[in-house]
């Protein structure tokens, strides 16, 4: 039996100092529940993604509190941690449990509060996703990981670094343009008319990446309702189906050697998802990829099989990945424009994919979209999840 997504919800991404992690999940959960038009008692389990609640809010054992908060006392509730891919890992596990017949209907989501934590704690918290011994002692940060990748990309593919920086800037310009029209985005109404020069000239964070090459720190929550086909058809006529999923893992960045620009675990995860969905990259109408940094979007699109290695930068600069291009990428603004509340990011990508496939993403709708793919990256290519969704 197929597995479907029957409801989606997300908070506005941005700053929420007045909400706890549990509150942020609950807000998104009830939006998803109403969207699915089901009753609370239909939800049999909660799959909850959170990365660094310990460091930002002093809270770790969150799943029970989340379940209790939404009124689902005593149901199985599990916290999943896979860095930035936490809720995508949770989603994939939920899909597998429903497919296996353990549940008819479950909730999946995530919450994170990095913006309220401040830059110093936020940067340290994010850095817990790198190798804690060898990479941490060198002071490697997350912008640092992708700065290393960017310089190596330029070298390996024989592109002058300045030329690559300009092409990377198009990712930021595009994603900010789409984030600026998305009411749920952190930068709604802001940076909609950014220029390449603005990106190049903004403050240097980790050379060669500037502030506008980076996604922001974000507070937010997201949730989706996953059900088997039978239950899905009872409550909504034409649901969005999960066509395929894939997941793979990788070790420390330095152990990956020259593959740091090839993201091999992502290649494996994407191929797994394509195989299960019985489709090829050509069949995908648009993608939600993990653009934690501008170069990250470029590397992701190549590893997933949409472009040859070393070429997605040119395609991006030519507009191939814009809303009216051959392969729209991150029509919701992506992590750069929409924001990146780490544990909530994966299911927020599902949120966008589902809204687009239902033709409900009116502020930046991809025309005639029938198949969508999401891509979430945890750590320095440590946890990779790809999900393919589609409508009949």
């Amino acid at each position, binding site marked *: 039996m197929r597995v479907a997504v029957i409801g989606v919800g997300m908070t506005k991404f941005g700053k929420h100092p007045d909400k706890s992690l549990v509150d942020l999940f609950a807000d998104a959960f009830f939006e998803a529940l109403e969207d699915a038009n089901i009753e609370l008692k239909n939800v049999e389990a909660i799959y909850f993604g959170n990365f660094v609640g310990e460091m930002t809010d002093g809270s770790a054992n969150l799943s029970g509190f989340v379940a209790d908060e939404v009124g689902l006392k005593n149901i199985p509730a599990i916290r999943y941690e896979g860095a930035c891919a936490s809720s995508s890992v949770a989603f994939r596990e939920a899909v597998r449990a429903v497919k296996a017949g353990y549940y008819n209907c479950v909730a999946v989501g995530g919450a994170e509060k990095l913006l309220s934590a401040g*830059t*110093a*704690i936020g*940067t*340290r918290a*994010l*850095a*817990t996703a790198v*190798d*804690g*011994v*060898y*990479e*941490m*002692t*060198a*002071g*490697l*940060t997350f*912008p*640092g990981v992708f*700065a*290393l*990748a960017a*310089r*190596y990309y330029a*070298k390996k593919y024989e592109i002058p*670094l300045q030329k690559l920086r300009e092409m990377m800037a198009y990712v930021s310009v595009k994603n900010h343009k789409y984030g600026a029209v998305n009411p749920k985005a952190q930068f709604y109404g802001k940076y909609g008319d950014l220029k390449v020069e603005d990106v190049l000239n903004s*403050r*240097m*964070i*980790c*050379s*060669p*990446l500037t502030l506008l090459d980076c996604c922001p720190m974000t507070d937010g929550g997201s949730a989706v309702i996953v059900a088997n086909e039978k239950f899905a058809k009872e409550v909504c006529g034409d649901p969005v189906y999960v066509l395929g999923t894939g997941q793979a893992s990788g070790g*420390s*960045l*330095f*152990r*990956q*050697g*020259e593959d*740091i620009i090839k993201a091999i675990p992502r290649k494996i995860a994407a191929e797994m998802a394509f195989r299960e969905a019985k489709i090829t990259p050509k069949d995908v109408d648009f993608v939600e990829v993990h653009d934690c940094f501008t170069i990250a979007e470029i590397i992701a699109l190549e590893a997933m099989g949409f472009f040859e290695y070393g070429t997605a930068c040119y395609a991006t600069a030519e507009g191939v990945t814009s809303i009216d291009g051959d392969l729209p990428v991150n029509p919701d603004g992506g992590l750069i424009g929409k924001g990146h509340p780490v544990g909530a990011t994966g299911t927020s990508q599902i949120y966008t994919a589902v809204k687009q496939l239902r033709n409900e993403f009116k502020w930046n709708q991809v025309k005639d979209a029938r198949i969508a793919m999401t891509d979430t990256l945890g750590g320095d290519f440590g946890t990779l999840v790809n999900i393919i969704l589609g409508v009949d």
Partner: protein
Amino acid sequence: MFMEFFNSLLEGKLLGMKCKDCGSYTCPPKHTCNSCSSRNLEKTILSGKGTVKTYTITYVAPMGYEKEVPYVVALVELDEGPWIIGRLDVDPKIAEENDLTDKRVSIFAKEMPSEMFYPMKEKRIVPYFRIEG
């Protein structure tokens, strides 16, 4: 084995593992060969020489590392094959204004203050790369 690795590095010795099955090197040491996953490994001291593959100048540091900015993090390919991470012992301005990739380097270690979450609570030992010539 990270304590042994760092303490050896302080004495100027770069500790790695040589695989008795496929002949390749793993550095820093791991339970398994980084190439073939074999556990049939023996400790060995590597040359400590290599080539800069990529680097970044970090201006925004995590909590606990603020006093060290700006610093230059680099990935170096050792002559024996493995890539290793550390810091380039160079003025960040020079790293910013020049292309230091492909430069030949040798490895050494510096002791620096630890921080709340780092596994070694007394001090951090940081691999550094000195540019040769």
